[in-house]
């Protein structure tokens, strides 16, 4: 699967997409879902929660293991992907689109610059 070029990535394998309205959509990478295997449960944060960059704010669980999801930037949760409650496997099937986890309104959108771009993320994964 090709890594979309418009995304930014955290070392902990979350992706972040800056939307036109200034919000940021967050999910996990194709590589991350592949490592986790079949997802069976996703715990998303609460809407309106104030979160700090690198806080563990969500959990994805595969049959074998639970994995924390960290906020890529500081901000406020504006929406969560309700469809994952019934269909957590959407994260496996479509990690960069339908399998998004939540959106944040960042306190400062320049914080996104601290994240990796797609090319750097791909090299990090390839060299792991």
């Amino acid at each position: 699967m090709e890594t979309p070029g418009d995304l930014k990535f955290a070392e902990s394998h979350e992706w972040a997409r800056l939307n036109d309205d200034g919000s940021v959509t967050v999910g996990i990478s194709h590589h991350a879902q592949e490592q986790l295997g079949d997802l069976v449960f996703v715990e998303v944060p609460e809407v309106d929660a104030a979160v700090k960059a690198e806080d563990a704010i969500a959990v994805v669980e595969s049959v074998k293991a639970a994995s924390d999801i960290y906020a890529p930037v500081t901000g406020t949760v504006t929406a969560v992907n309700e469809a994952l409650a019934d269909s957590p496997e959407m994260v496996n099937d479509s990690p960069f689109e339908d399998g998004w986890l939540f959106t944040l309104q960042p306190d400062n959108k320049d914080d996104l610059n601290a994240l990796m771009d797609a090319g750097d993320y791909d090299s990090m994964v390839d060299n792991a």
Partner: protein
Amino acid sequence: MPDTLKTPFYDCHIRAAGKLVDFAGWSLPVHYGSLVDEHQAVRADAGVFDVSHMVVSDVRGESSVQALRNLLTNDISKLSDNTALYSCLCHEHGGVVDDLIVYRIEAAHFRVISNAATRTKVLDWFRSHGVGDTETSGAEELAMLAVQGPNAVAKVQSIVEHIFPTHPDIAALPNFGCVWLDDGFVGRTGYTGEDGVEMIVSKQQATSLWNALIEAGVTPCGLGARDTLRLEAGMSLYGNDLDDEHSPFDSGVGWTVDFSDDARQFVGRKALQAQKLAGSTYLRIGLELQERGVLRAGQVVQLDGSDIGVVTSGTYSPTLQRTIAMARVERAHAPAVNDSTSELSVVIRNKPVSALRVPVPFLRKT
């Protein structure tokens, strides 16, 4: 993966795109792409697991019967040739050293299969308790596969002549029966709750056996599916559901303790008999989560808000599509735990989540 041991099927796993992990020092596949697909293949058809990491000990000689009767909680005098039983091996205080399967090959030859993670402990235990003349096969020389599922036996039978020139009749083996071959071994045993066999061949035959099974349509399955399958079937995992600190009665396998021969003073008998009379400290229960989430070993079990025990194994069950777990709780709470009006919960990430007591095994084959 540095310093991990490779089973004779290592190259087969690589070719099948297995995701290898270190398991008790062995490099073994956790899955080959999808744990859930592998799990379902075993429930619906047939799957093959590399179990070469297990420890195979052949106990021979006149003294072997006495030595094993003195060590195992279950009584091997119940066995006739070519049959097997499941047993615990206990400390004097009743805690479990390991769980194992013992096959009687003939009157003075037993084949014991025990866990990889307890290898040194169990072999030392045998030596220090007079189980002499034991030949333990390192898994690097032996190739052992479990083929499990409703179609497993038929599929093994269809390829068996390529592997064993003597054409053993696998389908005729009873449950817990076994056959000793010049060039291998087949037992109708397993760890999935399905019909199937566990078979041992020489290292040289490993690849051809594996390839023949794959060609017969058997799905390669990893440690992940092995764990979800055994848990659905209510089978214990040593190190999780069984350990040195807790007795078979604490852990739901009290049925493996056979007191019927008064003269058989096996290690742990005194402590276990006292527990049987007075009641063990703990009780093994099955739980099913009532809300979304996944139960995991180590999570605390609560009754009406107070801690009463701990989850020993938990998983999402691919067959039931629910979250299930085995837990060890204080027996003092048994009446309340059995009362359907009591509120049981499991603490997941600091939040109590409602759980229901359910029977073990979780999955009952019809």
